[in-house]
């Protein structure tokens, strides 16, 4: 299948290459980098403007953070409340321990519905469980209806952002994909023409396919309601026209009270798309006879989440409301886009979420895919201290390495272990400085600079020179000065 094609992004953390390896071809793709830089710049500017106009932004952040913390401290109770209220309102709630269970539950429902096709609202959680390829293998074709997801599905591409999944594709590339796959040779790249093409393609799906799959932005425990926000109206179609609706939601998506949406919807729209309010806010509760889907299923997905909940520092990862503000603000993401992260969840939140969802068995390079600049924490509307979690995960990755034999072939590991011995005794540190000056002196040119180093040093000198070590350390100068003063 498409996954074996060269250059096709791999978003499966169990087989994806490490971040530095996956980033390299992207760094060599100027068009993609230009698209990502432009798009993140535009969204960030919009967000910045709308956050600035909100005088109580920091209070809103604190309120959102408190709500999400409270949920995580009482997650089990709120999920059970949601289940009871949703069931009482005519919904059916399923619990899935992992991706395989969730896929099977959804397939069983679709088989019962005798569905051979299904329409979908953008749901990154379905990508997390790799639902589309699974359904396709079972003979069920899943049609994405979000514009960005259509672009990716028709273009045989993968999402690179959780709010704007086709952020790495520009308008003329979209035109080419639509022209090719919709057989519209004369299509222009005007936004209106592209939207019309998508609309024609979609309208037939909405009217003919009676089964839909959605994600959830929030579940409300108090009422058993589900909330989905979107910009295009395709979601509204999927949530109202079909006979049967299946909602897949991570267990962390629950909110205690209906009123909590007041805080969360304000903070989400401004953070995610730089809008005061999302154009479409759909909130529904179970089923209503004669109105909307008559069969409604919610699949609550754990898939590693309760393991994260058990960790003191890492738990805050689950506060995330998937606004992607951290991605747009991240200077690393700005260079690499999302595909380098080898996961449906890229950027700073992906760097902490993905390895944890993999129970630290995969994606160990992701916690290191950050310069720890802190821009993500600054913009996070629910105050997830991403740098703090990154450091916690780095400590776990290092502890894994301590038990492995091949640590002795990792110059970084050896270097840091030796440095620790040196830092424990000043005389050893000073001796090492002396040897370091001799050693680096061999690489220092006449101009006093080092232009090329071996081993890990080569990663430095590939783009940067290094000034040769000065003849005297500071502590050496201080000691001399003290002697002369006497």
């Amino acid at each position: 299948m498409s996954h074996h094609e060269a250059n096709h992004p791999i978003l499966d953390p169990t087989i994806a290459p490490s971040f530095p390896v996956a980033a390299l071809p992207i760094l060599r793709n100027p068009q993609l980098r230009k698209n990502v830089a432009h798009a993140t710049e535009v969204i960030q500017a919009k967000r910045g403007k709308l956050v600035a106009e909100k005088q109580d932004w920091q209070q809103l952040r604190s309120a959102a953070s408190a709500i999400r913390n409270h949920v995580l401290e009482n997650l089990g109770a709120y999920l059970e409340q949601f289940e009871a209220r949703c069931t009482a309102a005519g919904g059916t709630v399923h619990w899935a321990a992992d991706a395989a269970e969730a896929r099977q539950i959804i397939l069983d429902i679709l088989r019962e519905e005798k569905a051979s096709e299904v329409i979908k609202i953008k749901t990154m959680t379905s990508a997390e469980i790799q639902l589309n390829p699974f359904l396709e293998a079972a003979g069920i074709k899943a049609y994405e209806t979000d514009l960005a997801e259509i672009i990716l599905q028709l273009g045989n591409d993968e999402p690179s952002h959780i709010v704007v999944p086709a952020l790495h594709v520009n308008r003329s590339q979209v035109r080419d994909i639509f022209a090719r796959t919709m057989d519209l040779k004369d299509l222009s790249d005007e936004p209106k023409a592209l939207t019309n093409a998508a609309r024609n393609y979609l309208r037939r799906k909405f009217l003919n396919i009676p089964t839909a799959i959605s994600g959830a932005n929030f579940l409300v425990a108090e009422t058993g309601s589900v909330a989905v926000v979107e910009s295009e109206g395709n979601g509204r179609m999927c949530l109202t026209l079909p006979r049967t609706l299946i909602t897949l939601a991570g267990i962390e998506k629950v909110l205690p009270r209906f009123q909590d949406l007041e805080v969360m919807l304000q903070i989400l729209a401004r953070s995610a798309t730089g809008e005061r309010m999302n154009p479409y806010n759909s909130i529904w509760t179970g089923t209503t006879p004669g109105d909307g889907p008559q069969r409604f299923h919610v699949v609550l997905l754990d898939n590693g989440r309760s393991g994260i909940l058990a960790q003191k520092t890492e738990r805050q990862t689950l506060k995330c409301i998937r606004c992607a503000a951290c991605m747009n603000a991240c200077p690393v993401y700005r260079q690499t886009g999302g595909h380098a992260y080898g996961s449906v969840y890229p950027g700073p939140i992906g760097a902490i979420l993905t390895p944890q969802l993999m129970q630290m068995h995969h994606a160990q390079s992701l916690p290191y895919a950050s310069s720890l600049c802190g821009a993500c924490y600054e913009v996070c509307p629910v105050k997830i201290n991403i740098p703090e979690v990154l450091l916690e995960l780095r400590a776990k990755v290092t502890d894994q390495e301590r038990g492995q034999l091949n640590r002795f072939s990792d110059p970084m590991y050896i270097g840091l272990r030796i440095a620790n011995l040196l830092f424990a005794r000043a005389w050893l540190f000073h001796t090492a400085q002396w040897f370091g000056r001799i050693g680096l002196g061999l690489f220092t040119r006449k101009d006093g600079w080092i232009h090329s180093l071996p081993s890990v040093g080569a990663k430095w000198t590939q783009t940067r020179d290094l000034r040769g070590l000065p003849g005297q350390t500071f502590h050496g100068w201080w000691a001399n000065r003290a002697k002369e003063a006497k």
Partner: protein
Amino acid sequence: MRTSLFITCYNDTLYPETGRAVVHLLERLGVPLDFKPQQTCCGQMHANTGFRAEAFSQAKRFVRLYQDAENVVIPSSSCVAMIRDQYPGLFEELGNEVLRRQFTALLPRVYELSEFLIDKLGVEDVGASFHHRVTYHASCHGVRALHLGDRPYRLLAKVRGLAQMPLPNTDRCCGFGGTFSVKNGDVSSAMMLVKLQEILSTGAEYCTALDNSCLMHLGGAMHRQFASMKTIHLAQILASTDAGEEIA
């Protein structure tokens, strides 16, 4: 008891001129410094790379060495951020109550250089002269961890002959990130090239900062690209006078 200079491991080794500048500057302002030769490293490199046990031992060492100091001045915002943001967690995890109390008592007396000048000494005009065009690179730790705000700009504004050249997107990372610069050397370089272009476009003669780590990264790239701009730690600008104290 005296104000103590924690020079940091990499300044001691790679940028002794920054330490000398801090000494000259503070002596000129009437603050004689103490220097403990047993000092080595704050543990940032280890903590940020995941070597927490190793960072522990350096954090302990730091607290034991400076618990009696009147104040500690550190010409590196990322090392101060390490002490302020990461030591509390490390000591909590370590569960050594005596050490934790010693640290809590010491912490309010630990200053980054610009904090020490403005917050502790209450001076903005340090009597410096530096007749050059200068752009200030606000390092991430200075901006988001220490919230240095306009302190460095206020110090620069009072330097005779100095023209500040404003840098766009000041709050964006230069891509250094400690071991990130080699572990993710390609991405780090891509980030650096964006920042470098912005810095070079200011038309400044010098790029200054409160972290020699960022400057090592940016200055190394400037040298590689034959740029005429140079990097210089803010302490060295503030130490410069028309009498011609050393800057290099």
